[in-house]
């Protein structure tokens, strides 16, 4: 298994509070990974730190992508190296057309390619290409547009923060369909989630609790523990002193 991304001894404090505690993780190329844990465990913080978002740069430790230390480089440089991030609640843009939003991200600026990405997420280009990425889109539509822009970019690594948040069942099915399609293409995805349904899409999982990775294993081994001990969280986001015992 080839490491695409490596996180080494990463810790982050925000306003004096330790949010991430000595994180070590390897993200294998071509796998669907999940970072799973209850709300407030630090999952999104870790993803934001990997992407280099504002407010998440003052960490200790290192992040390597394709063997290169990316700890000090900007968001757009990381993106051009092949990492991107899908927000839990994507930004909305007054006046910016969906086709222009996708084109800005796309590796291929051709109109047909842009339309193809909309079709892939179940949005008819005839109806959507000339609409704005603004508040007139429903939460589900906006999530699909976000996914289409990621597909248009075709990055090596996608960090998807709570991909099921605020969307209907039909949109979620489409999202899972796209994830499976990406898996077949050997793309690497990291799903940040506290949802069992999302966890089930992953090959491999990191269990997060109170800013720590408390277990790493095949997703199917993590699922029973997560289902029984984490939904709802039985120990208020404090790692179980007994440790995580997987079947």
């Amino acid at each position, binding site marked *: 298994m080839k490491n695409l991304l490596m996180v080494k001894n990463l810790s982050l404090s925000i306003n004096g509070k330790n949010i991430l505690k000595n994180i070590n993780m390897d993200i294998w190329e071509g796998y669907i990974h999940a970072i799973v844990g209850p709300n407030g465990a630090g999952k999104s913080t870790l993803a934001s730190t990997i*992407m280099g*978002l*504002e407010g998440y740069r003052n960490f200790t430790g290192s992040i390597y992508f394709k063997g290169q230390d990316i700890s000090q480089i*900007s*968001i*757009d440089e*990381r*993106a*051009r190296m092949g*990492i*991107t*991030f899908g*927000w839990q609640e*994507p*930004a*909305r*843009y*007054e*006046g*910016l*057309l969906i086709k*222009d939003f996708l084109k*800005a*991200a796309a590796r291929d600026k051709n109109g047909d390619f842009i339309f193809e990405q909309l079709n892939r997420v179940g949005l008819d280009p005839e109806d959507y290409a000339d609409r*704005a*990425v603004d508040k007139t889109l429903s939460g589900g539509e906006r999530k699909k547009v976000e996914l289409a*822009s*990621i597909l248009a*970019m075709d990055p090596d690594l996608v960090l998807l923060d709570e991909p099921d948040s605020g969307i209907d069942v039909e949109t979620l099915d489409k999202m899972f369909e796209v994830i499976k399609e990406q898996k077949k293409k050997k793309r690497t995805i990291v799903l940040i989630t506290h949802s069992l349904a999302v966890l089930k899409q992953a090959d491999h999982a990191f269990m997060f609790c109170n800013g720590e990775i408390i277990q790493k294993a095949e997703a199917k081994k993590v699922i029973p523990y997560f289902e029984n001990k984490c939904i709802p969280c039985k120990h208020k986001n404090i790692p179980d002193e007994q440790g995580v015992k997987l079947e």
Partner: protein
Amino acid sequence: MNKELNLNKINLTKELSHVTDTEDIFNRPDVAHIFIHHHKVIQSHLLPGLKIDVKEFDDHIEVNTIVEKNTKIEKPVHMCFGMIPENGIQKMIINTELQENSSVSFLAHCAFPNAVDIQHIMDGNIKIGENARFKYLEKHVHGSHGGVKVYPHAVIHLSENAHYYSEFELIKGRAGVIDIQYEATCEAVSVLEMVTRISGKENDLINIKEIGHLVGEKARGLLSSRVAATGNTRAEVYNKLTASAAYARGHVDCTEIIKDKGIVSAIPIVEVSHPKAHITHEAALGSVDSKQLQTLMARGLNENKATDLIIQGLLK
């Protein structure tokens, strides 16, 4: 030094239509148009029910337009105003009357592509009769020098159930100095919408003053401004909406974005003097939204390109 120009009417018409991308309208008899260069009409074509009486003077031009009762003009009327030379003053007095049950849409192209020191002064008086519909889209094409000063001022009266929609947009070039002053009075059940979108660069100066008075029952009004101030641009937006009749409804909406050393200010004033009237306002001033910016950067755009794309969208 002045660019050498052949200032005959044919060449001016060609040049203005080229700059404003209106060359095709000359072959369309169903589309009315009037071209005014400096203080002279250089080309016009009217339609039944649309009367434009022009008085030319040395220091200004007076354009009196009447859309007759029950006249519905289907295609937008193109009004092309401008000056091709680098220097000068274009002063226009525009009186427009829409008689009852009429409707018209004006597409005003204001072109000053070579301006080094040009003033474009427009004093308008617009009367919209009962049940009449008026749409005025003003698109400016300026040069890159920033030497144009634009003063569009207008007083507007909307009769019962009249509709007014105006949109001011700088589509090309430097703003220079733009000083917009519109004031409208709205009778019962009338609808007022004023939309302004301007981007300033370098040391441009933008002042927008838009005022609406909702004096009739169920009158509605929207004042919407979108301004981007980059470089050393200074921009001030003054929006005032008053409501003094039952069920009058209004909204003031102002978004201003700064980049570099731009400075923006907004003064939204809402005044309600009837217990059954209602007005809301929202204003957002500041740099580009961080999440919007980071989303585009996470797709590989650098900060400048991402900011430009966000601003372009906002001004669209």
